[in-house]
Structure formats: structure tokens, C-alpha cells
């Protein structure tokens, strides 16, 4: 079966394929086989991934196989829980059953981070204007996803909220446009910009606080085979009511910070080193501190303009 947008396939057929594990999500360079009988996950997937290409059929080979389900038989019935099972052991706490969307996204992150060796992965959001990509790398709570989502509203294409995926053979980033993960106060900020319909229902009381997902737009999905060239690397820090502060980061420092946040750099080895170094030669890196999202968007736009001169 040729991949088709999820919304073009009957909901009942999608649910059946998810139950049986025959649904394949074709996104960017990866095909993911998904299996879950969790109705919260079904509803979330049908809504937030509606523009993504999927196929149905057990014969289609996938890069990753992910099941989201109960950790044991007991937990299917008594205070039901779910956890992501990417096919290898990974320490993770089971979640209440209604948090299955979070388990799905965590599982897809784990699958790509720990099983991909075709590309070098860095922990960063990526957006692009034309062919010029901006990488947004931050520690948890630094505002990576908020800034990524805000850049989308400023006319930038979403490549990824979670991973900068660098080719091994040339300096180019591959799109993997999955939903943008928003937490706590950033949910309202993005909802105001993108509209209520762009976000999933918030999940309250997760280990990360309240979580909601901003859907990748149809235009982001349609451009998922278009690589972009990294031009700008941003390390943002959000500090409430802070004025904008920008400072350049030495390429040497920036590279080490990126490498430290890569789940597979050491395994990819020499190819990762060579393309990472070539990438660093062609981009500018800055730390920015900001107190409101509009300031940060304007600043990134200015810096990208400066970086391409």
C-alpha cells in the first residue's frame, strides 16, 4: 500500500491497524510500526497525526517497532497503566492509561534516539526558512519547544521539535516533523498564536507537568523530504521578564555542547565527527536570554539574517 495521509483512511481501519500492529507511519527518513489498543492513543493519533502519511499492512518493513500498552496483564484492568515498549529495555515509569499520547511520543523519541545510526542525531529543535535551518538546542525548560513553535507561527517550516538529524555524507538536516511538545505555561502561549485547533488536549499531572502537543502543519509534512542547511545554532534560556540578551558562542564550545547532547554521536563515529565539524564551519552560534516569545522570534530572525550575510 502506498502511504496516504492518515485523514484519508477510514478511522475504523486505522484503529484496527493500530490494534493489530499493522499501521506504519512514514515520516521523514523513518518508518515506524505502531501498535496499541489504547483508545486515548487512537484518538490522539487520529487527530494530531492526521496529515501524516501512513500505510496499513504487516508486510511493510519498519525502522522502528513501537508498542504502547499495559506493563502487565493486571494493569490492563486495575488502575490501568501504559508504557512505551520500543523492543528493548529502557527504564521508564508506567503512566496512567489516559496519558498514552505521552507514552507514544516518548516511545517514538526513544526509538529514534537509541536505534538510529544512519544519521547523527542532536537534541535540538529545527526550523527553516527556505533552505536555511535554525537549530534550537536547550536544556529542559530552556524554551526549545516554545521557540520552535513560535518560529512556525513566524513562517518557518518545522523540521523537528526534538532532533536535528544530520546526514553522514553531507551537511544537511533531515526533517522529522512530529508534533511539538509543549509544557505548562508554554501551552497557552502557543495556543494564543496557533489557535485552539492546532493543539492536542492538555494532559494534566504528567511527570513533566501539563503537556500538550502542537500538530505539525500539512505544509511541514509535505516538505518532509526537503533537506535544509544549518546556518544558525541557538542556545535559548527563558527567564520571565528578562530583557533580551544575546552573546556569541565560540564554535568550539558550541560543537562540544551539541555533541554532549547527541544520543548516537559516538556510535556513528568518524562520519559524525567529520560532518559535525563541517557543519560547525558553516554556522553561527549564539546564546540568547529572553523574557517573552515575541522578542525571541524577532531576535532569531535578525540573527539568521546576519548569519547569511
Amino acid at each position, binding site marked *: 500500500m502506498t502511504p496516504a495521509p492518515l485523514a484519508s483512511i477510514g478511522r475504523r481501519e486505522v484503529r484496527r491497524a493500530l490494534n493489530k500492529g499493522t499501521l506504519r507511519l512514514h515520516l521523514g527518513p523513518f518508518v515506524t510500526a505502531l501498535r496499541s489498543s489504547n483508545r486515548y492513543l487512537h484518538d490522539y493519533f487520529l487527530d494530531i497525526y492526521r496529515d501524516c502519511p501512513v500505510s496499513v499492512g504487516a508486510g511493510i518493513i519498519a525502522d522502528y517497532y513501537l508498542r504502547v500498552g499495559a506493563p502487565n496483564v493486571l494493569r490492563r484492568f486495575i488502575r490501568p497503566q501504559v508504557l512505551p515498549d520500543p523492543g528493548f529495555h529502557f527504564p521508564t515509569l508506567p503512566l496512567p492509561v489516559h496519558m498514552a499520547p505521552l507514552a507514544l511520543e516518548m516511545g517514538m523519541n526513544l526509538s529514534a534516539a537509541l536505534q538510529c545510526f544512519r544519521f547523527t542525531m542532536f537534541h535540538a529543535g529545527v526550523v527553516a526558512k527556505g533552505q536555511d535551518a535554525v537549530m534550537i538546542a536547550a536544556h529542559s525548560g530552556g524554551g526549545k519547544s516554545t521557540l520552535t513553535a513560535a518560529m512556525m507561527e513566524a513562517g518557518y517550516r518545522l523540521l523537528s521539535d526534538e532532533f536535528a538529524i544530520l546526514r553522514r555524507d553531507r551537511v544537511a538536516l533531515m526533517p522529522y516533523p512530529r508534533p511539538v511538545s509543549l509544557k505548562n505555561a508554554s501551552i497557552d502561549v502557543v495556543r494564543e498564536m496557533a489557535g485552539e485547533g492546532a493543539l492536542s488536549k492538555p494532559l494534566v499531572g504528567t511527570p513533566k507537568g501539563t503537556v500538550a502537543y502542537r500538530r505539525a502543519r500539512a505544509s511541514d509534512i509535505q516538505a518532509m523530504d526537503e533537506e535544509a542547511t544549518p546556518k544558525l545554532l541557538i542556545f535559548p534560556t527563558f527567564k520571565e521578564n528578562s530583557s533580551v540578551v544575546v552573546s556569541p558562542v565560540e*564554535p*568550539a564550545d558550541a*560543537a*562540544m555542547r551539541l555533541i554532549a547532547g547527541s544520543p548516537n554521536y*559516538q556510535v556513528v*563515529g*568518524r562520519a559524525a*565527527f*567529520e560532518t559535525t*565539524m563541517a557543519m560547525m564551519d558553516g554556522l553561527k552560534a549564539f546564546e540568547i536570554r529572553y523574557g517573552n516569545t515575541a522578542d525571541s522570534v524577532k531576535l532569531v530572525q535578525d540573527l539568521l539574517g546576519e548569519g547569511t550575510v
Partner: protein
Amino acid sequence: MAEGMESTWLWFADRSHFCIHDMGEVSYLYCMRSGDTHVFNTVSMAILEYFAEKPHSIADLIEDFPELMGLSREECPRGVVRRMFNELDEAGLVMPLEAAP
């Protein structure tokens, strides 16, 4: 490392294990044996090159270091040179060639 071994062991750095990329004031070095990436300043790089050229003892390094860097002997305390060597050793970038009888 015991002081007594300093004058007897020869150490070398195998260039074929390294990929080096210069970036501004520093050099990036990827070690194929460990898979680690290191950031080197000019001093560390000079020491690595010294051992890559031919095997030397640590005593040789302490003796030759001032000239290597164009500095006076007073500017190159023995302990500092030894510490820089130890850092290369701990990172697995230099290896003992042999132990003299």
C-alpha cells in the same frame, strides 16, 4: 605514575588513529580508538605532535618543552608539563611503546 618510570618508558601517539579539524584557536581531535572527540589548544596539540613525530620519554618532554613552545625553562614548570602529559595519557591519546630493562 611513579617518578622512576619517567626516564625509562617511551611513549608515542599514532597519527593514524586521529582525525583533526582546526576551528579558530582550537583543534578538534577525533580518536578512532575511543570514539571520543577532544578539544585541543595549541599547547596540547604541540605535545601530541611531539609524541607523534617519534617516541619520547616524559623526561625528554620536560627537557624539550621550553624550546618546543618558545618559552623559558622557568615558564614551564615540570609539574605542569607532567600534568598535561597525564591528561593525554588518561584520554588514551599516547601509548607506551616499551619499557626499558
